[in-house]
């Protein structure tokens, strides 16, 4: 009989996610150490003539502290991805869509890019954000079908999420903000009380488009 399902599995998943979020918090705490200064060399060496190569601008590095949108109290939308609570600041949110029936997969792309959905005559690039924010070994084998798309960057990108939860009004002081040394550049900060990761939406959009995560 399959009447008794296994709550321990769910518990393990929950524990794993909590451990992951704890890891994020710890990582942010560890980042407080200043980086070792690089030795300076004053030797003048003839510079080779280098032809400038047009390259996409690298995503901006952030200074320590809250981003401009969090200078004062701000609101975030909480949504859940593979069990993990994530947040986007409302000022950076362009809309929420029910997961479209039709998503056209684009060949030649990795699983992070699920395909294109149409919204008001515009193509929305649908991203399986769980694959970015969760390590591969933390991705549950069985995931619920995404319920909604979180639209960012003028609705160019849609982040597939399990479900949308609530909005929170936060003080900048209630968030541990990511420092420039952080290993997860998509992370703006972590809400300590709610154990929730706030996405750096601007960085995310730039990095998704360029494929550069440095």
């Amino acid at each position, binding site marked *: 009989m399959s009447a008794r399902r296994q709550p321990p599995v769910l518990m393990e998943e929950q524990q794993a996610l909590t451990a992951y979020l704890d890891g994020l918090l710890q990582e942010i705490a560890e980042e407080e150490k200043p980086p070792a200064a690089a030795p300076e060399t004053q030797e003048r060496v003839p510079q080779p003539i280098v032809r400038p190569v047009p390259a996409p601008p690298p995503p901006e590095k952030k200074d320590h502290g809250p981003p401009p949108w969090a200078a004062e109290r701000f609101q975030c939308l909480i949504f859940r991805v593979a069990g993990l609570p994530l947040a986007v600041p409302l000022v950076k949110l362009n809309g929420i869509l029910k997961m479209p029936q*039709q998503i056209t*997969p*684009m*060949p*030649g792309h990795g699983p992070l*890019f699920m395909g294109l959905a*149409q919204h008001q*005559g515009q193509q929305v690039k649908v991203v399986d954000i769980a694959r970015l924010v969760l390590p591969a070994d933390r991705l549950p084998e069985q995931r619920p079908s995404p319920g909604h798309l979180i639209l960012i960057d003028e609705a160019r990108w849609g982040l597939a999420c399990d479900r949308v939860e609530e909005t929170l009004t936060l003080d900048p002081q209630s968030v541990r903000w990511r420092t420039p040394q952080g290993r997860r550049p998509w992370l703006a900060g972590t809400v300590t009380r709610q154990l929730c990761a706030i996405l750096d939406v601007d960085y995310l959009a730039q990095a998704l488009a360029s*494929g*550069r995560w440095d």
Partner: protein
Amino acid sequence: MAKESVSTAPEASQYVTFRLAEETYAINVMQVQEVLRVSEIAPVPGAPHYVLGIINLRGNVVTVIDARRRMGLSDKEPDDASRVVIIEVSGQVIGILVDSVAEVIELAAKEVDPAPNVGNDESSKYIQGVASRDGELTIVVDLNKLLTDEEWAEVANL
């Protein structure tokens, strides 16, 4: 002030559409020579994985590539609907195996949105753009970029 012509119809081109893994793709009709039912394809040992083999087309040897494999899609056994589309790219003639051929459509340049810019994945450079038709997206393929220069050369020398 110069008189503007009112009959400036947007530049339109005709495309042959085909299906692959439930999605619709379009290629410029000017590059399509003919569409064949799948006949005997002789495998070529040592050929790249996306090369199915060669066929004899009225005395000429034509290399056939599997569009699904080339685009990283799952394999599918050819069936009655499968077709080999004979195309010409820069003087080189090859066949591409597709799930089925659908129709010829006309697309104005402005109807084709640029290819989705996601990451720097080289393997999707052949996507020229996407066009919305009847609520569905059609993926427009730039056949010139279906293979790299080295791959075109390799296919030519099979």
